[in-house]
């Protein structure tokens, strides 16, 4: 394969090239070289052409010592009676179509016994079927990990399908049935209406019978979600929107059957199935929008269950599920592996990515005796841990519990539509009863005629438009937000966003980018920066990368040694050159390296023979539009606060930079929850924006919460809204759309009220024929939907409403 000798990026992962080159091309690390070789040997080089330019391949972790955690996989394999094996793997790092293709092609290429390999981009899951023994699972999983993806058994039990996904599929089947029935019944009804005068009784009854044959099974099958929900509500002594819907549909169908049997003129089958179809559309879209949230939660579960390698009493490594690791056991953690238990380091020096636990983006250097927690990722060197807590006892499990507890408070929010249904149902049913009594006693009509009129009142008031008024707006709003990379996870998020008056921001990773940048320093000359950058380009540590970014592209020093937890060392022509922590570089505590000592923050020291040590300071920069968004929110009348777990000085400095006046620093996760609870007790409606696991409980405790897509999984699971992209403009946009959506919902509700005020007298007077009912019901539903669609087209942020 011809290679460009001036390659500046790793041939596998696309990272700027910092390290050594091999004969096959240039790679940033051993892992990437291995993955490239594997892909090349399988003849799958097309992967590099196919993947999107901006999406880099996952960086590959180097192998450490100890037993392979994949050895626990055969337990998760489900064996079918015919001897075929099935395994569902959760795949971390799967993010584009090229990944799907690569994984599927790699697993099936030289393995004819693999019957099917199907990767799913939505659930980040790989389903493998093969004939053979469960132990082959390890081989396949190792192929996938060799490509740079992390795998874990999906949701624990091998073949168990997700019940929520099955429910969604059932909803789709019902929707298809209702759509088929609505189209065909409507065809028959139109011919009845258009031929009303010319058509004979026998023909009309025939058409009614055909309609009944289509409509009855449809109502019985497609109406089940509504009937079940209504029944459950009535059993609990409540009413919800499904109660009037069920009553309306059942009455309409029942009366139409009676009419058909009696060769009557009016049958309302079209209205019943059309209503079901419209409502199922709303419900299906709603359930789809929440599918993503579900898969994120499943993903978290899978990460928790990655098996742990324990050194047994006989000195042999042994693979156990994390919950079964005995306290005091010695656990081996390879480089690149996620730690499965809480414990202390017994042996080894390494850097840990602790962002899942602390929200801190800088790696944590650990030495023997240091405490580590489940969920952290071991980056540079293998470690031996002594387990102090496992399974439910870990800090990670504790945080998830705190999160669940905080979420319970939120379940109290009652949907606007349900609140209306509570008031609506009795009024409508009393009106129908009054109509019946009035016709019998005042109008002296026959009782069955009065009954027909009373039922037609119920039919015409069946809350089709009312039931669509809210979901139609929600679908339009979530579609509009999704196009801008903002995902609404919770069905009630929009309703809870509209009354927000206080916005609370977390600091690291939310207002800031969560990545260090070199602080500009006028005394720093390029001649000093460049030699340091030559070393820094050889490392993937965030501070090294920041230094390399600041210096721009340039040559890399050969033979740089990275000392875990210390820094970089290079044997230069004039002796050792070091770049790293103060202690690693042997700098006295009193030296200030030419930088103002008052500034605190992450730092690197650079020492060369015969020259004064030099200090580089780093800081986490605010997102580029943070100040603009804060100003915009303040102008719109929101109270903006900063709530940070960081030190007061750092928090105050950032708040001043972006223009936030109210700052609370040094807040631990429990303090954050308490602060939000206090704000809510004052009667404020609080929006929390945060990204770290330490914010997760606070996100759940706020009225509504946003989190950037760069946030850790748990936090995204806790948040109601997840936004993508570098900017914070999504916060202002979400709030604007929510307020606009509230306005549209109110318009829709006012319209349906008006519709009922007009239609009910017609029905009470006894003029509601099926044509009138169908025209009124579809007309009001379409009007409500058209009004909701205005949200997608208009630009609310310029509209000034």
């Amino acid at each position, binding site marked *: 394969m011809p290679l460009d000798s001036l390659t500046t990026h790793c041939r596998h992962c696309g990272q700027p090239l910092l390290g050594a080159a091999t004969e096959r091309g240039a790679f940033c690390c051993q892992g990437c070289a291995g993955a490239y070789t594997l892909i090349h040997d399988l003849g799958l080089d097309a992967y590099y052409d*196919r993947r999107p330019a901006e999406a880099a391949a996952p960086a590959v972790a180097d192998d450490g010592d100890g037993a392979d955690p994949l050895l626990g996989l055969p337990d998760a394999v489900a064996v079918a009676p015919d001897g075929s094996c099935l395994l569902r793997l959760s795949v971390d790092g799967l993010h584009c179509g090229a990944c799907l293709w690569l994984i599927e092609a790699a697993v099936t290429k030289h393995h004819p016994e693999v019957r099917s390999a199907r990767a799913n981009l939505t659930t980040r899951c790989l389903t493998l079927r093969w004939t053979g023994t469960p132990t082959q699972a390890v081989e396949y999983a190792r192929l996938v990990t060799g490509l740079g993806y992390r795998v874990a058994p999906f949701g624990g039990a091998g073949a168990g399908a997700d019940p929520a996904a099955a429910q969604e599929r059932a909803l789709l089947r019902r929707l298809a049935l209702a759509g088929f029935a609505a189209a065909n019944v409507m065809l028959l009804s139109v011919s009845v209406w258009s031929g009303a005068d010319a058509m004979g009784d026998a023909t009309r009854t025939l*058409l009614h019978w055909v309609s009944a044959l289509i409509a009855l099974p449809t109502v019985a099958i497609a109406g089940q979600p509504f009937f079940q929900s209504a029944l459950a509500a009535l059993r609990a002594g409540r009413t919800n929107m499904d109660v009037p819907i069920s009553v309306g549909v059942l009455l309409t169908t029942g009366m139409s059957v009676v009419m058909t049997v009696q060769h009557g003129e009016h049958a309302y089958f079209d209205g019943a199935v059309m209503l079901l179809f419209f409502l199922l559309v709303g419900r299906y879209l709603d359930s789809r929008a929440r599918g993503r949230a579900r898969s994120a939660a499943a993903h978290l579960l899978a990460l928790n269950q990655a098996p742990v390698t324990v050194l047994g009493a006989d000195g042999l490594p042994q693979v156990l599920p994390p919950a079964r690791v005995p306290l005091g056991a010695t656990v081996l953690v390879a480089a690149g592996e996620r730690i499965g238990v809480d414990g202390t380091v017994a042996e080894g020096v390494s850097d840990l990515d602790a962002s899942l636990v602390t929200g801190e983006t800088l790696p944590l250097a650990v030495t023997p005796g240091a405490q580590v927690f489940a969920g952290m990722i071991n980056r540079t060197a293998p470690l031996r841990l002594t387990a102090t807590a496992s399974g439910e006892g870990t800090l990670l499990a504790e945080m998830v519990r705190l999160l669940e507890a905080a979420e319970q408070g939120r379940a109290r929010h009652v949907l606007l539509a349900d609140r209306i249904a509570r008031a609506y149902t009795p009024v409508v049913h009393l009106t129908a009863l009054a109509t019946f009594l009035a016709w019998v006693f005042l109008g002296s009509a026959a009782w069955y005629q009065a009954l027909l009129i009373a039922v037609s009142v119920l039919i015409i008031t069946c809350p089709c438009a009312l039931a669509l008024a809210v979901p139609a707006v929600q679908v339009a709003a979530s579609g509009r937000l999704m196009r801008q990379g903002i995902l609404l996870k919770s069905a009630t998020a929009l309703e809870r966003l509209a009354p927000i008056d206080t916005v609370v921001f977390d600091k690291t990773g939310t207002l800031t980018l969560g990545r260090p940048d070199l602080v500009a320093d006028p005394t720093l000359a390029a001649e000093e920066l460049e030699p340091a950058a030559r070393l820094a380009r050889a490392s993937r540590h965030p501070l090294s990368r920041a230094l390399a970014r600041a210096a721009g592209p340039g040559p890399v020093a050969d033979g740089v040694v990275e000392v875990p937890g210390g820094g970089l060392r290079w044997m230069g022509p004039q002796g050792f050159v070091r770049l790293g922590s103060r202690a690693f570089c042997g700098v006295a505590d009193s030296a200030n390296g030419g930088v103002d000592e008052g500034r605190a923050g992450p730092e690197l020291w650079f020492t060369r023979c015969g020259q004064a040590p030099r200090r580089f300071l780093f800081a986490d920069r605010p997102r580029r539009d943070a100040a603009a968004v804060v100003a915009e929110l303040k102008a719109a009348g929101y109270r903006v606060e900063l709530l940070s777990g960081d030190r007061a000085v750092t928090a105050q400095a950032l708040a001043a930079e972006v223009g936030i006046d109210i700052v609370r620093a040094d807040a631990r996760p429990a303090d954050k929850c308490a602060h939000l609870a206090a704000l809510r007790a004052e009667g404020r409606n609080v929006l929390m924006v945060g990204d770290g696991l330490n914010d997760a409980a606070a996100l759940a405790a706020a009225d509504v919460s946003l989190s950037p897509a760069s946030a850790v999984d748990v936090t995204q699971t806790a948040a109601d809204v997840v936004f993508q992209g570098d900017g914070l403009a999504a916060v202002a946009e979400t709030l604007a759309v929510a307020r606009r959506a509230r306005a549209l919902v109110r318009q829709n509700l006012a319209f349906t009220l008006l519709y009922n005020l007009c239609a009910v007298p017609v029905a009470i007077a006894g003029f509601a024929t099926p044509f009138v009912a169908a025209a009124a019901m579809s007309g009001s539903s379409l009007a409500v939907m058209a009004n909701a669609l205005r949200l997608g087209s208009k630009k609310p942020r310029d509209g000034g409403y």
Partner: protein
Amino acid sequence: MNSLLFLIPAALLLGGLGLCAFLWAVRDGQFEDLDGSATRILYEDETPLPKRHT
């Protein structure tokens, strides 16, 4: 009106065929991964893409 006797069954049969096809597609899992299917269509194994020139 006699034409109705075969027109209605014909219409229902055709509509029913469409419904069955859709239900089969749902059962077959074709709606499981809409994100993945959207990108999969771009890859054809037999004809490799032209090399990207950088």
